[in-house]
């Protein structure tokens, strides 16, 4: 478990602000203990200080994962969020998108959200904004990036893409071995 370099911390936070905006502070500034980000083999883990100290007793070679994997740094030093981060992102996301029950499966198989599958969207969502995608019963099922703003959505034709798929909970099965 390595501490993130300043450069990488910046990249990580910039990515997180795309989804949860100012609420990133709430991930760090928590009343129930100190939480921090650690890096292992380019994966970033969100871990409490208490758990980290326990994890440090394990030999680094033998430690596979500790805490919650938020994502990974690619070879080109970009940060990619994993679906495992959804638990922490979903409650803080200011921009949300709800999909109709008929379009849920399509999304969970890794497809983009199209206009016909769009149930509801947060007012004033700009274009290219990171959004968390919910079912109509308010269960977070993934996240993506809007392809159109809310106002544009009204005039879009039914097959137009509203949000680009980035991660969904179907990945827990589909890419089980690459997630952590």
């Amino acid at each position, binding site marked *: 478990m390595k*501490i993130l370099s*300043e450069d990488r*911390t*910046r990249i990580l*936070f*910039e990515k997180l*602000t795309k989804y949860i905006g*100012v609420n*990133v*502070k709430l991930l*760090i*500034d928590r009343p129930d203990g*100190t939480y*921090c*980000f650690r890096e292992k083999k380019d994966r970033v883990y969100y871990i409490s*200080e208490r758990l980290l100290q326990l994890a440090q007793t394990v030999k680094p070679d033998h430690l596979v994962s500790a805490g919650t994997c938020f994502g990974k740094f690619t070879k080109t*030093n970009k940060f990619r969020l994993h679906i495992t981060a959804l638990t922490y992102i979903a409650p803080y996301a200011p921009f949300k998108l709800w999909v109709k029950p008929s379009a849920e499966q399509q999304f969970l198989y890794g497809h983009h959200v199209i206009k016909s599958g769009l149930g509801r969207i947060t007012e*004033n969502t*700009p*274009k290219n904004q990171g959004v968390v995608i919910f079912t109509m019963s308010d269960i977070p099922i993934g996240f993506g990036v809007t392809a159109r*703003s*809310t*106002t*544009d959505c009204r005039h879009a034709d039914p097959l137009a893409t509203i949000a680009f798929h980035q991660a969904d909970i179907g990945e827990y099965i589909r890419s089980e071995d690459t997630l952590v």
Partner: protein
Amino acid sequence: MDIVNDILEREQKKAEKYKPIVVEKHLELEFDVGTLLTSDTNDLDSKLIKSDQERDIYLQSLARDNTQLLLNKIWELPTERIDEAIVVRLPQPTTVLPRAKPVPKPKPLTKWQEFAKAKGITKTKKSKLEWDEQLQKWVPLYGFRKAAAEKEKNWLIPVPQNLDPMTDMYEKKATEKSEKVAKNELQRLKNIARARKVKIPRVGLPITSDKASSTQLATATSVAKASTASLGKFQDKLPKEKEARGKGVHELIPGKERKRKLPVPTPAAEKEQNLSMIDRILRKRPKIDMEKAVSKHINEEQLQRSEEKKSMKPMKGRGKPKGKGNATNFSAKKPKGGKGQRNPSKKNPGRKRR
């Protein structure tokens, strides 16, 4: 009789001076005659060992007794007489003594040995002599008589077609051999340096710009940029410029090596750092997002227009007005013709719409 008594008395006095050679012990002692060692496992007399006056006497007597027992054991061994002296050949010692010097470390492996170990390559023993078909005799693999055999074998070396016909093949062979020897020597020295962890300068020709690869050029740029008094901190950056990465690049860039060994901050300090970093990122974002503003404006306009529509002609049109509409609240006017739009493609053209 006097004389006999006298002698006996003298003997007795003499015997009194010496202590008995038989020692009674509660527990048998453990002997290792080979190292002349006895160990007494009997308990010490705690009363005697605590008293100041008798402690030394007690310990002395104990030592004497035990020594007596050891000597008794030695006398049991077969004695020899060499040059008027009685000697005993001691048996092999049984007590294992720890070694004085530390255990020698295993010799550090050479680079080849390491590689061979990783790949599982094992050395196959070659026989020293080999049958030479050409010379019709046994020729050694190396060493004595090898050079002579080689000389006899290579009395003539043909010049290959692709070479200059005037080349001296003997000289060529000699230089090849000397180069091999030099290379081996260099590798030997490198192995020694590696084992002792001595830094050695890199070997090889410097890369010229016309033959450099993109990674090499990127590395050169990064190194050049960092080669200022402030380690390149105030150098301008191109948009999307990337720092050179790769094996061994990091060590070349000045000021990089130290940065890597930053200590892990305390949890509180780390939290502080993270929060200030987030603040910086949030501050950096533009206050006015043009696209958001435009879309917001369009949205407002649309809302306004729809509001206007509602307020201008609240009761007209077929769509139910959203407000407090009821059955009685409709216009009594007849729909006028010639003002609406007709949709001929629809099944039921119906009445004209506005």
